């Protein structure tokens, strides 16, 4: 395990006062620690290690041994994807790219000492730190709900056992029952995600439990791909989905997990399955390291994803506040490549290239009915700004929608190869 740099330097200083520190550092490889092995972190670690060909010491800190992607977990809910195809291991990153994969929690960052403390007690030092910790929920954002109640009312917004639980609850719901979703306020992970999930639940219910109803309680006026989803729900699942918006009090919602009720501005609904997706903020380690602002997210420099609080730290993906890019796996993957190039430039004098960012989000509405939205982005001084965008159109023919779905499978296989192989 890593030797603390201060200890090392202290030892060297004691041993030979004339030996200059830079010469000592030159004998060892520059160290980059990456916290979080999702779309941002795994991509960053892989590109740092692969492109530096051993010149960097790359440590990836990720508590889970199998990473379940959030993207495509809705397809698993809908029966279009297998759970084992959502799970990915870190073995190739270690074996092929020489990344030191440490399965542990990062519980503290000492920004002055440039060290990361792990729950297991180890201390890692770094020349550059990349954090890509994803999201945490804002406590109390849906009164009555807490993580302690997540078995009664799953969030299923971090993939894995929660996704399995929600799938089982949907499949075993009583005949003619009510599935409710409390959707999150902006900004949150995967803007079309809640609505793709509504589609997938509707797909399952329309086959297994066609008299069931879906109640979507949404605090937002509008949502991602709204016209496409609403067209699809009317076509594939007529009469099944009812959306309550803020005009009917959906911005004032509480739940009672014991009673299985949802209180919408005083109107109490008895439900059978309740998916609560709370308001979100940057993952905990970003707060512990004091990298977040009042918004709860970690502001970054648009040109390179560097924290505005600390120039040795880069923040990727959902946890970052960067501007126009949606909080998505694709965005995190795109941002990681920019940060990796900058870090290799700073530590290894690699050629520096100007940032380019992109994102596409595919969603599945029903069997072979896929849609997408995407954009390209460039940094300005204040934010990452959209330069060009596109979205699927309503009324597209079935062949194009099927092709879009098949393309989404190609993308899934592409991005996980770009992260894990």
């Amino acid at each position, binding site marked *: 395990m890593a030797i603390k740099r201060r200890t090392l330097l202290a030892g060297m200083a004691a041993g030979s006062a004339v030996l200059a520190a830079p010469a000592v550092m030159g004998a060892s490889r520059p160290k980059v620690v990456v916290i979080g092995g999702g779309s941002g972190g795994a991509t960053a670690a892989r*590109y740092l290690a692969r492109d530096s060909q051993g010149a960097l010491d790359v440590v990836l800190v990720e508590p889970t041994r199998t990473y379940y992607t959030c993207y495509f977990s809705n397809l698993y809910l809908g029966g279009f994807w297998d759970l*084992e*195809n959502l*799970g*990915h*291991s870190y*073995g*190739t990153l270690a074996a092929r790219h020489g990344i030191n994969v440490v399965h542990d929690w990062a519980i503290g960052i000492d920004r002055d000492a440039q060290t990361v403390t792990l729950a297991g007690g180890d201390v890692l030092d770094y020349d550059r730190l990349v954090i890509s910790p994803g999201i945490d929920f804002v406590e109390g954002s849906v009164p009555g709900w807490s993580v302690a109640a997540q078995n009664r009312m799953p969030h299923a917004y971090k993939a894995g056992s929660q996704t399995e639980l929600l799938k089982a609850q949907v499949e075993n719901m009583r005949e003619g029952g009510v599935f409710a979703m409390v959707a999150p306020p902006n900004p949150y992970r995967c803007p079309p995600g809640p609505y793709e999930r509504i589609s997938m639940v509707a797909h399952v219910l329309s086959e297994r439990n066609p008299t069931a109803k879906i109640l979507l309680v949404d605090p937002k006026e509008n949502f991602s791909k709204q016209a496409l989803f609403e067209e699809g729900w009317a076509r594939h699942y007529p009469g099944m989905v009812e959306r309550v918006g803020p005009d009917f009090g959906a911005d004032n919602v509480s739940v009672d997990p014991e009673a299985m009720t949802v209180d919408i501005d005083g109107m109490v609904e008895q439900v059978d399955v309740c998916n609560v997706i709370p308001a979100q903020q940057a993952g905990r380690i970003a707060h512990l390291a004091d990298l977040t602002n009042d918004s709860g997210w970690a502001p970054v420099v648009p040109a390179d994803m560097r924290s505005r609080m600390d120039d040795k730290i880069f923040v990727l993906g959902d946890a970052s506040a960067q501007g126009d890019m949606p909080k998505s796996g*694709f965005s995190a*993957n*795109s941002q990681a*490549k920019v940060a990796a*190039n900058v870090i290799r430039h700073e530590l290894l004098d690699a*050629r520096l*290239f100007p940032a*380019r960012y*992109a994102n*596409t989000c595919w969603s599945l509405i029903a069997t072979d009915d896929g849609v*997408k939205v*995407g*954009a*390209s982005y460039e940094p300005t001084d204040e934010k990452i700004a959209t*330069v*060009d*965008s*596109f*979205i*699927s159109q309503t009324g597209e023919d079935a062949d194009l929608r099927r092709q879009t*779905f*098949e*393309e*989404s*499978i*190609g*993308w*899934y*296989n*592409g*991005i*996980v*190869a*770009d992260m*894990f*192989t």
Partner: protein
Amino acid sequence: MLTITPPPGQRRGQAGLRRSLTTLLAAMAAAAALAGPVAAQSGDSAPETVQSTTTIPRAVELGDVEHGRELWEFECAACHEMGPGAGDGIGPQLNRVFGRRAAAVADFPYSDSIRRMGRDGLYWTFRTLDAYIENPYALVSGTRMSYAGLDDEGDRADLLAFMRLYSDQPGDIPEAEPTARRVEVELPPEVLEIRGDREWGEFLASECTTCHQRDGAAAGIPSITYWPEDRFVVAMHAYREGLRPHQVMQNIARRLTDEDIAALATYFATIDD
């Protein structure tokens, strides 16, 4: 180890999967049947072809050559050439493909997957080509041929009847050049002559590899690995000008300069991942 997901063609339904497997088994049996005689005469290895010892049906018996010619234009000619002077493009040239060992065109950058099938004794016959064209991924799982497959058995027979014309003895190959490619965009020579900055191309390519896999595995999203540079350049300009219809690709291409495109073309033509 990464979980490999079957391509969409295999996931769509049990019926499709069963049909593909049946065809696959038939293809494997055919390959095995032909491997024997070939091994026996492999001393003469210069042209890696097998002289038919069984009756290969005459072209006219396979299907409708004229319909096959139309199918070739729509389905194949964007990547493959046949006829006098045919060369390798995105895919290998297909003159005399009947009887040829899989992955046998010298210098063509085949996928490891199809090279292995060739070493294992896959020869292109009516039955193996039929299986490959029906669902490339069912026969050669890691192929870089980005082709969803031709479902209709009659269509495949027509297409193969047409292709069979180019597999007879050299003297029999028709003189006309029916496979001349249409040019999607006319690019000035100075654009085609830009030397790509490979390192810049590699950085730009990281935007591509979120979807297009570096090793060329193609399922749902086509392979762009080892494309000839000129073909890559023309394709990207066609997206940039909106002549090729795909929202994501047009969006990506619109912000690429001529130099960016040349850099990407150089990188993907010489990728070594």
